[in-house]
């Protein structure tokens, strides 16, 4: 078991493409870290740098305190589960799981015992004689996992292993994966673009964008205190609402002047902003999660903004209402289960202590 450390790691590809830019990342022993971000953000490249499938242009990679930067993949004692599972088509399930042990010259009897034990723990013992093409997606995924865990590696690396499964199976496997990792106590680095997966699996989430690390924190912190506008917009479903405006603070109050309307800044939020001490920008983006917005049918009230329903998503337990307020479209999660109608006039309140204020130019979060 081991920790993983990436020190000032940069990876450039042909044509000057910056896949990873000056990455500083530490994964503690036994920790489950998720690398999260949109396509092309550098998360898979980061994983491959840890695996040894890519060599950093600059920087150092450590596993278990040892510099492995120039070490070949087979010498790093890591195990990887690929998005496509990468099972060996010409081998049976038994042979697939046994392959890493065979490559490490483990005696045949021991190979047999370990493979059967691992297969039993993942409930695939009856599949040992089959070939990968005879397996379902979920079964292949478990075989890939079995191949990874049979070696007792220092680090698990997983590259979107659930993305090829149907939604229901994905939910089941998420829970199974988390339980497995806790049981085995293996340091795990997991790549995904699905922020729900990240939030449910991770001890810590590393959000990446365009090769740069945006925030590295536990899921609750990434959700409640995003470091910048990108993280705020990427984490959370539905995504955070953003309204551009000018921050105007007087002695005891503050507003976001969005030209067509004003949003009153919550007093607690205002206190946080003022106590920051840093010079607050004038041009800001106000961010509020759909769950923190309020919607009402009641007439004009102070602090409430008039809007028109643009669309409604009926989710059963709650409804997601899209409301046009001036030129802005605000998404609100309404827990009252009322069936809002298209083009209906409603009133929305965007004031909340959970809201955020971002610098419109840099995206930095001032709350």
């Amino acid at each position: 078991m081991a920790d993983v450390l990436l020190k000032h790691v940069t990876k450039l590809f042909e044509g000057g493409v910056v896949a990873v830019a000056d990455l500083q990342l530490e994964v503690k022993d036994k920790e489950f870290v998720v690398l999260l971000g949109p396509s092309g953000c550098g998360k898979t490249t980061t994983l491959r740098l840890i695996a040894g499938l890519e060599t950093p242009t600059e920087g150092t990679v450590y596993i278990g305190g040892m510099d492995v930067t120039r070490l070949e993949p087979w010498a790093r004692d890591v195990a990887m589960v690929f998005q496509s599972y990468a099972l060996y088509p010409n081998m049976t399930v038994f042979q697939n799981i046994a392959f890493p042990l065979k490559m490490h010259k483990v005696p045949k009897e021991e190979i047999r015992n370990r493979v059967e034990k691992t297969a039993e723990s993942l409930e695939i013992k009856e599949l040992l004689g089959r070939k990968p093409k005879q397996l379902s997606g979920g079964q292949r995924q478990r075989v890939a996992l079995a191949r990874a865990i049979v070696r007792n590696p220092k680090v698990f690396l997983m590259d979107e292993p659930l993305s090829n499964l149907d939604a229901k199976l994905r939910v089941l496997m998420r829970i199974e994966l988390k339980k497995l990792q806790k049981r085995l106590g293996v340091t795990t680095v997991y790549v995904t673009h699905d922020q729900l997966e990240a939030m449910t699996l991770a001890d810590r989430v590393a959000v990446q964008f365009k090769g740069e690390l945006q925030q590295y924190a536990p899921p609750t912190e990434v959700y409640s205190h995003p470091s910048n506008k990108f993280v705020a917009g990427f984490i959370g479903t539905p995504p955070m609402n953003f309204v551009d405006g000018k921050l105007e603070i007087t002695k005891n109050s503050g507003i976001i002047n969005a030209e067509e309307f004003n949003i009153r800044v919550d007093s607690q939020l205002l206190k946080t902003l003022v106590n920051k001490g840093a010079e607050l920008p004038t041009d800001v983006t106000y961010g509020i999660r759909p769950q923190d917005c309020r919607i009402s049918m009641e007439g004009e009230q102070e602090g409430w903004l008039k809007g028109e329903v643009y669309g409604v998503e009926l989710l059963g337990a709650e409804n997601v209402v899209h409301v046009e307020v001036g030129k802005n479209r605000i998404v609100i999660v309404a827990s009252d289960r009322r069936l809002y109608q298209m083009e209906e006039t409603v009133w929305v309140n965007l004031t909340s202590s959970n809201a955020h204020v971002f610098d419109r130019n840099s995206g930095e979060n001032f709350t």
Partner: protein
Amino acid sequence: MTYWKKFRRRIQRIGRRRLLFGISKNALAVIVELAVIFPIVWIFSASLRSYGSLLTTTLQIIPPNPTLQAYSWALAANSPFWSGLVNSLIVSLSTTGLCLLVACPAAYAMSRFRFLGKRPILYVLIFIQFVPGLLMYIAFFYLLLSFGLYGSLFGLILVYVSLVLPFAMWNMKAFFDTLPRDIDEAALIDGASYFSAMYHVVLPLTVPGLAVTAFFSFLTAWNEYAIANIVLASQSNYTLPLTLFSLAQSGNLTTTWPQFAAMSVLSAIPLVIVFMIIQRYLRAGLAIGAVKG
């Protein structure tokens, strides 16, 4: 419904134009097949004739009084067929084996790695195949002479390998390119070296490619005459094409043709056996090679 009525209804359904196209397409195929098969049938027919019976002005596919006299001669213990067969087998199998041994790792490297000079090497591999063999004969002759390999089967094998290698490397590279890199990478992470990954995981998935490469290497070495004629001096080293040619040249033309024909038929048997063994791989191998190569 009578057969004729069923037939007419079928024709109506197919349509006249499609029917004419189908008939002419099949007729053309039959003509081409006949043209290809005719020399083989003629040779086989000649092999069943008695000595001197080819002196005839009539076209007789089925010989009068067919006899296995020529085959008895060809398969006799002292017949030159056996030494020719052994030499051809040595040369063809060695060429095939050596070619695969060199081409597979080279093609794997070209498929999987980035290195300096990769593109120029690939271009050289294409263009070198355009060079007519005739231009290389003199070079081969002097090279073999310089290395003391002139007249030896080993020298001939090396020449054949150099001729077949460009095709073999391109073909195998095309097959390796069709395989996802995930599999190699999984093998590397599982503890395999690059060579182990190629051997244990990648190569078993390219059996059609290996079959095509092996067959064309074998075929080239088996049928090749001109270079063997330059390289091999001693009759004891003659491969089957040279043995056949020397048989055709020697003695009385009227007596040797059935023997020549019988030895030709016998020479084709190993090729047919090899083809029958690997033909199911050839179909897949040729299709993929055609798309990617």
